[in-house]
């Protein structure tokens, strides 16, 4: 298999010492096995996610993503842009859609970019990391690299919001996407059928600003995984991962529940199934340890 190359937009939460630095580590390990080469966009900036709209109006926000895309065109010409973070992917794709739709906005965006010595030409596609592994690599190839199948582990595929809506993964439904379940199966694990909260919102940024409201949503997401018999939750989104993992003690205190459900990234599962070490899978990054995965990685 020839090396696949992409222009990579890691996003703020993947930086060293940031909340999903463990995600980046496991993505790198996964890509190493799959012979995928990620060329980081030099000097990339924050996309303002979905919460920066207060201070940032339409044009300033579009300019943020356009700057990343212009840098990508300049330094990684001809390569699809790949984001591992749901919000980064969404904000960047939305920008392209908005600018394609409105030539006035496109012209103004380029006027702003000129101040930074850049130009956005709209040359490349914007992809999510899971899109790339499913569409460009494919389940069959993904399965070929499995050396330590995740046997007897029941896993709830929590797809969440922004990897699923409004764009989603090609061919998947908004209400019941199956790709995470198929990935789990490919890795030898057992996906939870009928996980009824798989596309429910975790509250996103509101977990920080209005915690009671979003923790009520998070509680249902975890409860539904337990109801389906899951031992762990898998997700493609950094905000979902953090929100669903780190507030379990607070939720337990408030609701009298006894949650202790590990929440991992698809890339963590894949790295372990591909026979790499616990360190390569960044398992030390779990606030709630994924003990079963540690056992498999240590075998």
């Amino acid at each position, binding site marked *: 298999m020839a090396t696949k190359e992409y222009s990579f937009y890691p996003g*703020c*939460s993947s930086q*060293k*010492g*940031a*909340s*999903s*630095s*463990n995600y980046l580590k496991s993505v790198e390990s996964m890509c190493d096995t799959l012979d995928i080469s990620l060329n980081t966009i030099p*000097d*990339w*900036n*924050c996309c*303002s*996610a*979905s*919460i*920066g*709209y*207060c*201070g*940032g*109006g*339409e*044009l*300033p926000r*579009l*300019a943020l993503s356009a*700057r990343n895309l212009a840098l990508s065109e300049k330094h990684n010409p001809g390569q699809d842009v790949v984001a591992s973070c749901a919000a980064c992917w969404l904000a960047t794709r939305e920008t392209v859609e908005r600018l394609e739709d409105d030539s006035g906005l496109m012209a*103004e*965006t380029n*006027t*702003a*970019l000129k*101040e*930074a*010595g*850049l130009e956005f030409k709209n040359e490349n596609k914007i992809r999510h990391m899971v899109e790339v592994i499913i569409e460009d690599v494919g389940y069959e190839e993904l399965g070929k690299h499995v050396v330590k199948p995740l046997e007897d582990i029941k896993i709830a595929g929590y797809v969440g*919001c*922004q990897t699923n*809506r*409004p764009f989603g993964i090609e061919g998947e439904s*908004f209400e019941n996407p199956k790709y995470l379940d198929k990935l789990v199966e490919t890795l030898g694990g057992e996906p939870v059928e009928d996980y009824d909260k798989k596309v429910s*919102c975790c*509250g*996103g*940024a*509101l977990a*920080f*600003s*209005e915690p009671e*409201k*979003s923790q009520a949503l998070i509680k249902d997401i975890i409860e539904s995984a337990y109801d389906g018999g899951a031992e762990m939750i898998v997700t493609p989104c950094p905000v979902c991962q953090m929100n669903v993992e*780190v*507030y379990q*003690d*607070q939720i337990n205190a408030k609701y009298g529940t006894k949650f202790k459900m590990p929440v991992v990234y698809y890339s963590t599962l894949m790295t372990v199934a591909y026979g790499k070490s616990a360190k390569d899978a960044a398992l*030390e*990054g779990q*606030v709630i340890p994924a003990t079963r995965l540690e056992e498999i990685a240590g075998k």
Partner: protein
Amino acid sequence: MSEDINVAQVERYRNNFLKEVTDNVEEGEWVRMCMQCGVCSGSCPLGPYWDHPPQEIFMMIRANKRDEVLSSTSMWMCTSCYNCIVRCPRELPITHIMHGLAHYATRLGLAPKEQPTYKFSQRFWDNLVKKGRINELKLGVNLYFMNGFSEGVKTSLKMAPVGLGMLKTKRMSPMEMVGGHSIKDLKGFHAMLKKAEELESARVDAKGGSAKNA
């Protein structure tokens, strides 16, 4: 400044708030397409908490409820989950309209200053503008102290176990407090944002500010 713009907009769009939204709010022209089916309100994860869910906000815009809409806490509670967008039978970009209304309310100085997500959203923007990248630690600490010092200490203590978990797993670094990640071309980055803000303000001024300039 914002009071001036607000007064000018009131003058210009007297009794036609729908036109004001169409002209000035991001994706606001779509409000006209709402057929009041209520699927958005029923699909919203925070629907039960909103004073006025999206469907109601759209009707209030048509009914000229300008102050009630722009000072509402409702659109600030949008989690950006996009459920409303994918389910809307007329394909209104509801999430974006909510963000657009929130930003326009801020621009006019009418946003509810005590709404926690309003505060968080502004802090998020300020944080990213500073270095070009979000500094999660500073953002978190800033957020805990947004309601004053003693509230901040209480929140920090409550959140300490979560923070400790993040520290232990190296998903939070105390070093972010002193240095932190930054882009290299900050100068170009800031010049770009300044220009973008100028161009955007000019657009609002060209429409709303004309009364003032006449």
